[in-house]
């Protein structure tokens, strides 16, 4: 559907030049909910603006269904954007905003009216269609922006952190709403966010970006459970990083214990860093048996649904373990200062490319 080929974007010239995107290549499939995830300034919005046509790439190409669109102005691309601040036209009503794209495409009046009604129904805004955009709430503006961008039925919908201005409850609702809209319309969504949870819950695939590069592309499960490098692991969820020695697919932790591990491409044998998610670690009081590590409990933090333990391993490394709480689990959790035995779930160890 969309192919980004070696896209580089540099702003400014000479000493003040700033490279927002460095040689980014990625394929986005048709009818996919694709998310660009990364901290602010990582280049995700720049990539979105390149696809929309607001900026030309400095180098590289953007292909839509096989044809190069990198030099087309935004009004000639079958791509629409939901802007971060919504960018609704303040001098038009809700319905006029939604009709704008259709009018520009020169659709007949009857068809425009019909599509606008459909869109109003799709985003549940029928009653407010004659309101000015300044007279509706943030969540409603958000829905109008969606309807306006969807009305011309673009091949691709670009969403630039559309939920960041909403409060938590509304954000959760809109996440579900967006998923529904995507499956109902069958349009490819490219979604930009810095919120890892949003990315994991909504996306078919996620591209994690940092410093102008795409570090990893994969399903939410891939990204979370098999991050390829430390930045990805750190950005998404809680992480433990431990030193280890790798021989083939086997990893021996510095703290002891041997595990079969997933290994990303391009990692040399020998000393490596590995990731273990806190929830993949089990802790019980007492001395370790075979396959378990010995540790000392430093702190115990209760947080409702789970308890997090900070453990000190024999190597001096700190290990976080997160255990789901059950009605009777209180007794099973070792107390602070106690010796504990740590077991790591099979398949929980991932080698990182540093």
């Amino acid at each position, binding site marked *: 559907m969309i192919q980004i080929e070696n896209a580089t974007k540099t702003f400014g010239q000479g000493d003040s030049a700033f490279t927002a995107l460095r040689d980014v290549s990625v394929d986005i499939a048709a009818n996919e909910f694709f998310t660009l995830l990364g901290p602010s300034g990582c280049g995700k919005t720049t990539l979105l603006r390149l696809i929309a046509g607001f900026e030309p790439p400095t180098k590289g190409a953007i292909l839509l269904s096989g044809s190069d669109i990198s030099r087309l102005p935004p009004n000639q691309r079958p791509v629409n*954007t939901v802007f971060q601040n919504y960018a*609704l036209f303040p001098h038009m009503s809700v319905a006029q905003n939604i009709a*704008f794209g259709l009018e520009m495409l020169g659709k007949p009046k009857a068809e425009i009216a019909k599509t606008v009604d459909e869109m109003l129904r799709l985003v549940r805004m029928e009653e407010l269609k004659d309101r000015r955009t300044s007279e509706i709430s943030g969540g409603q503006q958000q829905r109008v922006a969606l309807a306006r961008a969807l009305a011309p039925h673009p091949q691709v919908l670009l969403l630039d952190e559309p939920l960041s201005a909403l409060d938590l409850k509304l954000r959760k609702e809109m996440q579900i709403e967006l998923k529904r809209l995507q499956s109902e319309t069958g349009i490819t969504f490219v979604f930009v966010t810095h919120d890892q949870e949003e990315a994991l819950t909504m996306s078919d695939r996620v591209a994690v970006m940092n410093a102008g590069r795409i570090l990893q592309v994969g399903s939410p499960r891939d990204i979370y459970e098999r991050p390829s490098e430390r930045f990805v692991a750190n950005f998404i969820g809680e992480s433990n990083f431990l030193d280890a020695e790798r021989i083939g697919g086997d990893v021996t932790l510095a703290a002891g214990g041997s595990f079969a591990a997933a290994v990303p491409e391009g990692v040399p044998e020998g000393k490596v860093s590995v990731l273990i998610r806190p929830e993949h670690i089990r802790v019980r009081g007492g001395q370790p048996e075979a396959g378990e590590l010995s540790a000392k409990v430093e702190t115990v933090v209760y947080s409702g649904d789970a308890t997090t333990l900070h453990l000190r391993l024999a190597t001096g490394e700190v290990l976080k373990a997160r255990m789901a709480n059950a009605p009777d689990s209180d007794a099973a959790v070792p107390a602070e200062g106690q010796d504990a035995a740590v077991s790591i779930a099979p398949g929980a160890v991932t080698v990182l490319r540093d």
Partner: protein
Amino acid sequence: MSEATTHRPTYRPGELEAEANAADNRNRWLLSLPALVIIVCAAAGPLLVMVVYSFLTPGDYGNVKWEFSLEGWIGTLVQRDIFDDTLMWADAHLSIFWRSLSLSLITTFLTLIFGVPTAWFIATQPPSRKQFWLFLVTVPFWTNLLVRTIAIQELIRSEGVINLVLLKIGIITEPIQMMFTDFAIGFGMTYVYLPLMVLPVYAAVDKLDFRLVEAAHDLYAGRWTAFRRVILPLIKPGIIAGSILVFVPSLGAYVTPRVLGGGKNLMFGNLIELQFGAGRNWPLGAALSLMLMAAVMVSLIFYVRVTSREQADG
């Protein structure tokens, strides 16, 4: 204040508030007194004098005689034949009205043509440079109007810079007569009133959210359509304000037509001046002044109606 009321049962509810409001009102009147005095003495009073004078008979050496007469008002549009008292249109006045109106409209149009792109240019500069450009636009305000007008004269007179250059290059063999023409007046007024167009349009463009323009392009609008459908409606208040600010003083312009138009190409302001000076017809002058004011009022009412409708539904 309502809390104070509830804590003192001797007062009826609302009584304290009413008293406080009354004191508040007194204070406001007192504070606005200086402004009121100025408005009454400097605007309403003289205006009343003009209204009264316009219904009196001209005195022999200027001034007025206290005899009621409609001649002042009649004289604005028609003139009496000195021999048989038949009335005919005052062609001289009508052509002056027409020249004032058309030159003011042309001036407004030209300041729009030059002012809107200038304002756009300034508003889209980086913030640090905006101040510099804005300063340049306001520089003419620091100079006396008469001096600026005479500077224009220096440019366009027969031995002026423009003619000298054109003669030197050989494009023309005889100097072009530009002084004392309608062109000279239009040119001068466009120059003088240009900042009054640039500043309000600048303010409107500066407020414009360019993400809306991006949104329009994203929704398949080309450059021209985006301008017409999104940019223009949003900067319209600034354009209307600028047009009024240029049109109103143009209509009553006095110095520029006097210096650049000479004695022949009169405008409304010069015609009024003539009645109070050499013409010695104060009632006619008063009536003409009131007519000019009425024209200004009409354009202001138009502005208010357009902008308030804008705010209500546009």
